[in-house]
């Protein structure tokens, strides 16, 4: 039986290590009159540690400054030019800024493309993540899927856009976009752009879902099996509901990415000023048609583009920033509420 050694036990106490004292030290001996707690002083640190410490602070402050700077500048410029009228009227091509309308269409375009992209990405990502975590056999296939998604995540959006253009100009995808009388497929539409946009959001939803599923301890699954439930029932009724917060977080992040993307809009959506429906089936015609989003609108109206209406560009950019910030805020909110009810606070540790 081992008795824990107590201070003053059998072992003779070691002599104190000759450690250097802090120059301003001596505070621990005797009480200072003001009863101030003596904190660790940076002056005792090595020079390299001190430099590193200062650099870390500087980096943090710099990032803060950049973030606040962008926000403040955009808010200043945006609020200055933002009028309700701008959000409510469609743009028209006019060299005169006072009669070139607002950016209702691009705003709708952003919302539409974001919804299409996330609607395609989420189920696929959840399915892939669930398969990888809960089945994952054969291993080589799981690894293949994993690397596939990694490749998608690492591919620049302009490459994805060009790939999409080549892909959707194939005859079998003719139903997704405008097809000329000769049979040439245009390949640009909300559907095709949305499909490619889903690739941008997919890795984020996938990673979030997978992480969530992996954090569920094994004994939760066993508890379900022990009740005579099948694996499918366990996944549907226990596991996926538990990772709802993770899925929403991933989806919100992915939506932010879609809303902010420009390359796919320019290549695959036409980046036109207004929504240009295609065909006469209501609803489908918009999806089959081309259009633009806030990103392409900002680009076109910026000094770099041809519209040259920088004030409207600022206003639109501000709205876009608000949308993305709102999505980020939603992520935070979801993550926090997830922490309240999710597994993290449970008494069960991972096995």
């Amino acid at each position: 039986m081992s008795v824990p050694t107590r201070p003053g036990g059998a072992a003779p106490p070691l002599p104190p290590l000759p450690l250097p004292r802090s120059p301003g030290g001596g505070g621990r001996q005797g009480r200072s009159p003001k009863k101030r707690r003596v904190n660790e002083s940076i002056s005792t640190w090595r020079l390299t540690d001190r430099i590193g410490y200062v650099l870390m602070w500087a980096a943090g402050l710099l990032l803060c400054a950049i973030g606040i700077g962008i926000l403040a500048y955009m808010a200043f410029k945006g609020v200055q030019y933002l009028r309700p009228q701008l959000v409510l009227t469609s743009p028209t091509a006019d060299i005169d800024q006072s009669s070139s309308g607002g950016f209702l269409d691009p705003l709708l375009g952003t919302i539409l493309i974001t919804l299409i992209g996330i609607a395609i990405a989420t189920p696929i990502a959840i399915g892939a993540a669930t398969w990888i975590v809960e089945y994952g056999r054969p291993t080589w296939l799981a690894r293949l899927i994993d690397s596939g998604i990694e490749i998608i995540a690492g591919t620049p959006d302009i490459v994805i856009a060009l790939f999409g253009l080549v892909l959707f100009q194939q005859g079998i995808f003719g139903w997704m976009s405008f097809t000329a009388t000769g049979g040439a497929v245009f390949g640009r539409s909300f559907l095709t752009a949305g499909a490619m946009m889903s690739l941008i959001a997919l890795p984020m939803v996938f990673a979030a879902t997978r992480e969530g599923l992996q954090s569920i301890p094994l004994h939760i699954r066993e508890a379900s099996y022990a009740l005579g439930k099948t694996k499918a029932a366990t996944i549907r009724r226990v596991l996926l509901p538990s990772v709802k917060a993770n899925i929403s977080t991933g989806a919100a992040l992915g939506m932010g990415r879609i809303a902010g993307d420009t390359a796919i809009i320019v290549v695959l959506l036409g980046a036109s000023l207004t929504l240009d429906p295609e065909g006469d089936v209501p609803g489908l015609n918009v999806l089959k048609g081309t259009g633009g989003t806030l990103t392409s609108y900002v680009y076109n109206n910026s000094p770099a583009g041809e519209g040259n209406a920088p004030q409207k560009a600022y206003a639109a950019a501000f709205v876009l920033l608000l949308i993305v910030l709102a999505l980020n805020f939603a992520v935070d909110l979801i993550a926090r509420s997830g922490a309240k009810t999710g597994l993290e606070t449970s008494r069960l540790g991972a096995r």
Partner: protein
Amino acid sequence: MIDPHESTARTAQTTDEPANGTMPPPIRRITLDSQPTVALPPSQDAVAIANTGDRSLAAAGRPARGVAGPERMTISGLSVYYGDNHAVKNVSLPIRQGEVLALIGPSGCGKTTLLRTLNRLTELTGSARREGLITLDGTDIDSLEVTEHRRRVSMVFQQPNPFPMSVFDNVAYALREQGSKRPKKKVLEPYVVDALQRAGLYDEVASNLDHPALRLSGGQQQRLCIARALAARPEGLLMDEPCSALDPKSTNVIEELIVELRKELAIVIVTHNLQQAYRVGDHVAFMYLGDLVEYGPTDDLFDNPKAARTRDYIGGAFG
């Protein structure tokens, strides 16, 4: 065999606080169970720990023995291997309705493995291999559909493991068909309430069945898990150290529950707490390194253990 005085003693004890000496002192929390992963050979330690209990006190707080009913499950020649590790060696045991079978033995002797095999959960472990026959009401359990078998023989784990959903949904999940959302809440409510009542939890959660289960206390969570296991009206209940994470009071509640439930169920309980085995067990099986060393009625096994190893392990457990 049923002594009326004993049962009155038990009823009296349920209303009393544990501190007034009608039941053994809650020594177990700080002793055998505190570190279940550390192998505890039947050493002087165990004897010394067990010695602190008092047999007469334990007997006073002990419920009457159950009346052995029909044999529901039979284990014959069961061996379980994890790869090369022979975890359960040629074990044969009967499991009867109306009584509680307590499995005791030092850590790592294969109790959990045996229990999980009865529920066919070992099959989920890739490296595990099983030999021997287990029957449920005379039918080889391998020939039963595995989900149906697990519904008939339910399991409660050492760690409380409620699902991250509401109290109601935890129980309702067990009642519903595979993955279905039907029947609706209204229809299920009486069954859920019944299961919670049988598990002795209902009064504490009645006001808020939509409360997230993970915010219940550990003891409440464990009773919720029992309610969940009972909801589908199983015929057998396997409990793997159900009280090891609980305080003496919750332990007491669950022990009473076990004694109550054995009338309708065949119960197997794994425990490191010899006093618990003595209190709730009608038969006790002592395992050592995968072998079933001794099996017999609780009183016989504790009074005059036949095997030397059993004697060493429980030796003087009650002074």
